[in-house]
């Protein structure tokens, strides 16, 4: 197994050396959905067999549940998510005036818990946080990603782009080495997708559960043998800002299924 791994790493390093970072033309933008087998596509397409819908269902239940010392539910302020949350996820991450930084949807849910519900924050990758995030994002399914144009986000988005293009880890690969320069080619048995965050939180067959974009980014960093950023790290939100700009126009699929 390790020999195979090393071989794959050498192969990637070789192809990545030839090409320089160029980015993806607008007309060539494709969701990871397009790179999957018909079987995995079918799994996502049918809500009655898509396991991610179990988290959406849980999120719908949590939305109505009173929480914290304020004893108020999400629906207590935001009413029916099907109306009030429609399109919200399409423009996240947003600028958070309180911290002077961008905040992603899971971060917003936790800040709502702290400030409005006076409840403890939900742990990263906990079923409850994933479920609420999936439920809110699901309300934008089928809508194009339209990142917020707030000028205050610009420096953070620039930092995200810089991180995306920086070579890291023992394999000395950047995100761009694979996902800008070599998408569509194979790495071992898998096709390299363009890395558009269209379906998070999503059900990954490898994880056998739903996970966030932050988990996937950490996953990639581990893959190139780099020390991953901690859950909730500012860098992960900056990366997400760049990724959503890069994916502008693609449709939200939450909950997506990926291999």
């Amino acid at each position, binding site marked *: 197994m390790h020999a195979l791994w090393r071989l794959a790493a050498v192969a990637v390093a070789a192809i990545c050396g030839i090409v320089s970072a160029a980015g993806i033309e607008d007309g060539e933008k494709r969701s990871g959905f397009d790179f999957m087998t018909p079987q995995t596509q079918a799994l996502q397409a049918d809500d*009655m*067999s898509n*396991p991610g*819908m*179990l*988290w959406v*269902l*849980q999120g719908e*239940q949590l939305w109505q549940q009173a929480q914290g010392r304020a004893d108020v539910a999400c629906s207590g302020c935001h009413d029916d998510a099907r109306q009030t949350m429609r399109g919200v996820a399409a423009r996240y991450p947003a600028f958070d005036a309180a911290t002077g930084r961008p905040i992603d949807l899971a971060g917003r849910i936790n800040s709502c818990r702290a400030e409005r519900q006076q409840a403890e924050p939900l742990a990263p990758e906990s079923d409850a946080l994933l479920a609420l995030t999936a439920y809110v994002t699901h309300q934008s399914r089928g809508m194009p990603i339209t990142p917020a144009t707030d000028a205050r986000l610009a420096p953070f988005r620039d930092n995200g782009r810089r991180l995306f293009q920086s070579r890291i880890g023992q394999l000395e690969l950047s995100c761009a080495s694979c996902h800008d320069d070599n998408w569509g080619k194979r790495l071992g048995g898998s096709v390299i997708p363009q890395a558009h965050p269209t379906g998070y939180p999503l059900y990954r067959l490898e994880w*056998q*559960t739903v996970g966030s974009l932050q988990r996937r980014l950490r996953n990639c960093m581990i893959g190139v043998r780099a020390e991953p950023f901690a859950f909730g790290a500012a860098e992960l939100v900056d990366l997400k800002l760049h990724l959503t700009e890069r994916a502008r126009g693609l449709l939200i699929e939450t909950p997506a299924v990926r291999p």
Partner: protein
Amino acid sequence: MARALVNVPKVARQGEVVEIKAMIAHPMETGYRSGPNGSNIPRDIIRRFTCTYNGEEVFSADLFPAVSANPFIAFTLVATTSGTIDFTWSDDAGKTQTASADITVN
């Protein structure tokens, strides 16, 4: 809170064969995996799934660790009379979860 999705047609003709889909959130932990500290993650799987139609068992399944996490089962039933179709999942930990759906037969 049970996290289960069941799909039963709301209306069917008498004698019609209808497709039923049932899926539940469960890790189906095989007992063959190690945790981060090298210790064994104990087995916890749903062993048995049953489906009753107005109280009478019409389909069941014995599951083993080779069934995927968040088990999904699809099967067929003959729509006989209007009533309730109940689903029960029982796991190693002795936990039983249920879901149900109504069907109108005409």
